[in-house]
């Protein structure tokens, strides 16, 4: 890849785009702008139950964001490992809504079609959303079967003893009747996707120079 030379205090084109996408999403998060108040104390990383398995930790993610390295964050495994336990967000002394910001990063990665190769959460989500669009409700049994068939049927065999046990206890059902007004829900999903609010609509005051770097557009 050709290296793009930039002056200090400037972002390369790709980073500038990502940053503006990011900021337009953060707009939705209540008090999302608090991200600029991070003091890099590491409480988030210390509280995170899965940080031991992350390639970059939550604290490093904010540091990378500040350094104008959003691309690096999106390529990481870390954002897909977050299990939404909200420990970081609860304990952050600066009250940064970190778990919600992780969602923003996931959105950004999905928008730019960047997915983790080892963590199959993407396939699980696809299966989940297809079922939701189709029936309006989930059936965990069918969800798991479809997910296993989609990813690794051989590895899925490890779930067999559990499935048998659940079946004996009468906790499995293979029918998803769904909701009555499936059409209504589908139209809600379709319409709300259309009004995905355009970036230009939001010109937050903190957008420029918020994290020490000015984005060139």
């Amino acid at each position, binding site marked *: 890849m050709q290296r793009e030379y930039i002056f200090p205090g400037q972002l390369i084109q790709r980073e500038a785009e990502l940053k503006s996408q990011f900021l337009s999403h953060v707009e939705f998060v209540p008090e999302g702008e608090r991200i600029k108040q991070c003091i890099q104390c590491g409480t988030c990383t210390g509280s995170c139950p*899965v940080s031991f398995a992350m390639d970059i930790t939550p604290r490093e993610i904010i540091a990378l964001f500040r350094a104008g390295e959003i691309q690096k964050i999106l390529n990481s495994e870390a954002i897909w490992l977050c299990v*939404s*336990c909200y420990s970081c967000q609860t304990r952050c002394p600066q009250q940064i809504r970190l778990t919600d910001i992780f969602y923003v990063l996931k959105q950004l990665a999905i928008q730019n079609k960047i997915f983790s190769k080892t963590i199959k959460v993407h396939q699980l989500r696809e299966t989940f959303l297809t079922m939701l669009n189709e029936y309006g*409700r989930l*059936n*965990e049994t069918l969800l798991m079967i479809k997910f296993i068939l989609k990813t690794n049927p051989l590895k899925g065999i490890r779930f067999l003893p559990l499935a048998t046990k659940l079946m004996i206890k009468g906790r499995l059902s293979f029918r998803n009747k769904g909701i009555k007004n499936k059409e209504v829900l589908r139209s*809600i999903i379709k319409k*709300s996707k259309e009004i995905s609010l355009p970036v230009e*609509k939001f010109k937050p005051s903190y957008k420029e120079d918020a994290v020490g770097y000015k984005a060139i557009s």
Partner: protein
Amino acid sequence: MEYTYYPGCSLHSVHKPYDISCRAVFKALGINLIEIEDWNCCGATFYMSIDEVTSIAVAARNLALAEKYNLDLIAPCSSCFTILNKANKFMKNNETLFLSVNRVLREVGLEYKLSVRVRHPLDVLVNDIGFEIIKLNVKKSLSGLRIANYYGCQIVRPDKYFDDRENPTSMDNLFEMLGAKSVYYPAKVKCCGGMLPTIKEEIADDLIFEILYRAKENNADLIVTTCPLCQMNLEAYQKKVEDKFKEKINIPIYYFTQVLGVALGLNENDLAINKNFILSEKLEKIIKEESTLEV
């Protein structure tokens, strides 16, 4: 008293026992639960990572349907509880979002005015109904039972809903009042791994093991939980982590409504206790006992 009720998808399939016991407990206390007609999946954590407007709109349909009753909404599943609360919070915070969601809802003949309060059954039991009324309905004492109260993540965080975020005590107090001993349990708000056992099991094992081990270490007879996913992870993968960490644990995991139901004199079928994998001998004994307390 009356409440609207949003069971969610989990409680309609694998976690039927939670649904059954929850309804039974409220019925025994004389509270009417009205299930929202034709509710849809809340979208869980997955829609949130695709698009805000869609995720909020999917959740808001349920809130709009519930609003017609003008009652508080009970959501027993921790994930539904968080998502519905989050939808409320995001819409209150951002007017553009609120208006866009309502524009979508209006096209299908719905409207949401942000007036629904989303509550967890534990919150309703402890703070609305109160210990006095529960006490009047108690048929059996749980004395001798050592309980580890596991709250999980999403009913105590991220915002302060009805209990402390680091050391919640409402469930501890509830079971102490019923005669049981709530043991010291440092893992009470630790994460069980959520959907990780499905997608990255080796990490989930560590999390599950700690939660189970801390209960065993403090000689708990059973763990009670408020979340369907936690119940599944702790119960279904218990054998696996026992083998992996070479530590025999064998501790039963109950939904908190099942144990509360036992104290209210309900039988095994009312609470669907037989559908659990591991049963507590002590609790089974209490179920078989005749009512000992005077009503």
